[in-house]
């Protein structure tokens, strides 16, 4: 069935302190639209279904090709990127947009995802290089291992995995799959490996890998199809081993 209109129902909020409210918009249907292009259409004429002129909806986007992670929101209840949510592939009827719930709302569909970037600091998600000068050829790397590492390196810090995770919430310090998986990645890198223990220790305490309940909701929503289950399993193995070794050394 072809839609006549694209009907959006959006959960809005003016600022972090105020109460959320719902507002609806209708835009004439055209083929090949996505949720971002509809939001862009609305700001050219920000009038709601009641005919009131309202402030345009606030949301984030940059790349429009599902690689920067900025435009993540709940679309019909599922965390995903608005730019790659094609209208023609969504079920008929009203399309419901809400901000992610695991992060503080800034305004409307925009949330503050600083939590994830802070966690990258906690787990030391970087290689301890000597400096950015030329030291000659980098260490060689097995192409097969590289392919797995590459899959992990495509994480765009979008937050879908945290949104879907039952163990990530305001009452728990659990960092979720995004930061944990980066530990697996850096521990595979030929130079990154050298600081393997520091990273393992960073995820062995509260908020780390022990808080993962292995429900694998994260894998199902990751838009980059990152094999988080494998990544977390590998990390689990490494931390357990590191724990035993540490205990033996005592």
């Amino acid at each position, binding site marked *: 069935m072809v839609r006549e209109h694209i009907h959006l129902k959006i959960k809005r909020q003016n600022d972090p302190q105020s109460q959320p409210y719902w507002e609806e918009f209708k835009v004439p249907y055209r083929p090949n639209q996505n949720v971002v292009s509809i939001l862009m259409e609305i700001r050219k004429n920000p009038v709601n279904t009641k005919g009131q002129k309202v402030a345009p909806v606030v949301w984030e986007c940059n790349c429009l090709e599902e690689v920067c992670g900025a435009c993540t929101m709940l679309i019909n209840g599922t965390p995903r990127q608005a730019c790659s949510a094609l209208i023609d592939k969504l079920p008929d009827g009203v399309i419901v947009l809400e901000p992610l719930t695991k992060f503080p709302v800034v305004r409307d569909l925009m949330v503050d995802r600083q939590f994830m970037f802070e966690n990258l600091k906690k787990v030391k998600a970087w290689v301890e290089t000597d400096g950015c000068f030329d*030291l000659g050829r*980098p260490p*060689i790397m097995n192409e097969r291992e590289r392919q797995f590492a590459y899959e992990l390196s495509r994480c765009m810090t979008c937050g879908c995995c945290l949104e879907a995770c039952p163990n990530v919430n305001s009452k728990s310090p659990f960092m979720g799959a995004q930061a944990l998986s980066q530990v697996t990645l850096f521990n595979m890198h030929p130079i990154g490996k050298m600081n393997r223990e520091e990273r393992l220790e960073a995820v062995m305490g509260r908020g780390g890998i022990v808080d993962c309940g292995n429900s694998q909701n994260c894998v199902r929503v990751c838009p980059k199809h990152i094999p988080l289950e494998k990544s977390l399993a590998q990390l689990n193995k490494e931390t357990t081993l590191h724990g035993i070794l540490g205990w033996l050394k005592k």
Partner: protein
Amino acid sequence: MAKQKVIVVGGGLSGLMATIKIVEQGIPVDLISLVPVKRSHSICAQGGINAALDTKGQNDSTWEHFYDTIYGGDFLANQPPVKAMCDAAPGIIHYMARAGVMFNRTPEGHLDLRLFGGVKKRRTAFAGATTGQQLLYACDEQVRRYEAKGLVTKYEGWEFLSAVIDENRICRGIVAQNLTTMEIRVFKGEAVLIATGGAGMIYGKSTNSTINTGSAASSIYQQGVPFANGEFVQIHPTGMIGDDKHRLMSEAARGEGGRIWTYKDGKPWYFLEEWYPAYGNTVPRDIAARAIYKVCVEMGLGIDGKNQVYLDLTHLDSKFLETRLGGILEIYQNFQGDDPKKVPMKIFPAIHYFMGGIHVDWKHRTEIPGLFASGECDYMYHGANRLGANSLLSALYSGTVVGPSIVEYLKNMDKTSLDVKSTVFESQLKLEEEKYRKICQMSGKENPYKLHEEMGDIMRENVGIVRYNKKLKETDEKLQEFMERYKNIGVSDNSQWTNQDIVFIRQLWNMMELARVITLGAYYRNESRGSHYKPEFDKRDDENWLKTTKAYWTEKGPRFEYEEVDISLVKPVPRVYDVDGRQGKKEAK
């Protein structure tokens, strides 16, 4: 002397690389960016990054990389800085691999290379088809490491508004706005780097991110820094034409064996292979874009009668395609629906990259002491046409040049920003606050987004692949009309919290200023060179136009000056791709 500090505006590849260089010298950096730097536009880059690593036994050399870049740029680039960039390229890739980039590897585990346009040897290192993302992440991680040590302070979600320039025309800091709280404040610093990327949004739809408005570059242009070679805008031959964006299908698709074709007399016609036998599908972008334009618009041979031709990968092995081009296949399938491994992709040229930009010297200093520029927002390395996979390189390389150049500048300074009279900062702050307040009060009938759309449409139509003086003149008049209509814009959002409307309106003016620089620059340059093509003047004219354009802002519109190009290393020769016309492939001894 009090502690010195540097302000880096922009956390794409160039800004981050410069930051690393500066903090490695122990000097702290305030890093300002519209978005979390990990989401900067560099993330979009797909195909790869050039360096004569020569891991394929082809006897490649940095000299040949240099020659190809100069030749591909139709001899408009200053040669010594390009030479230095190509010489430094292998070292940069080595560092990036050490810092964590998961570049594809050869069976022995070395850095793999693929073919790109306008060259004869494999010279492009790549990480699947998400090379920009991987490079940006590695730089982001290194910067985070210094952030954790307290050397970098990030201001993400802040917009640079203007530079603070004192009575001696020395830059002492910036004024910026917090895009959430809308607070406007001064950042003092001994040096300021602008590394704010390209400006695709001037054309409405392009392959660029929505944040690429060129607003920051335009702002310092309006403060007196010349904008160079604005008329040279790269149009990428293989875009997916969309309603909201023209998504890119990387040149890597052709580098790995993809073929461009359409139907002629009922049979597939591989027109690039027929017209350019020496390079075939991997001719440079300006050549391919014009060929596709000719086939569709002039000959009417587009697929299904529309402006589109096929980019075909279906003859290649699907496992091979997955590991080398996975990222872009995913984009095509997600946004178009078809699987490019099974069905040829439909593509048409799209606005992509700005060869022109802020005028700098070879150490990336602008004409205002203390104010520097690097990355896509400068004009230095690509002449009249950029070769594919050379801009990730120039973004990183210019960062490695400007970092030390800033450090050198700091060493020779006699006073710090703290010694500067406070009125210098206050008056610039007032100016920006006033501008902001005025926009808040705009209550006219025009919608800024619609006005922007109109501007983009006319820019794509008239200042794109084929340019006619009559149309260029009309476009400039139209732009001035838009600038009049701008005054009649109405703000739809009255909030003082995360107001994206007002921010866009301010950017829109800056886009209009630069649009005039591009359009008039094109109007005056009566020749055809690289991406700039005028059927009325269809030859390159070295006698009159082997010159860098420099546009200076005046109240009445841009004023143009021209500057000699440094051609001290290789002699300009005609640029052809039907045969191998390169005449300086071997270094002259």
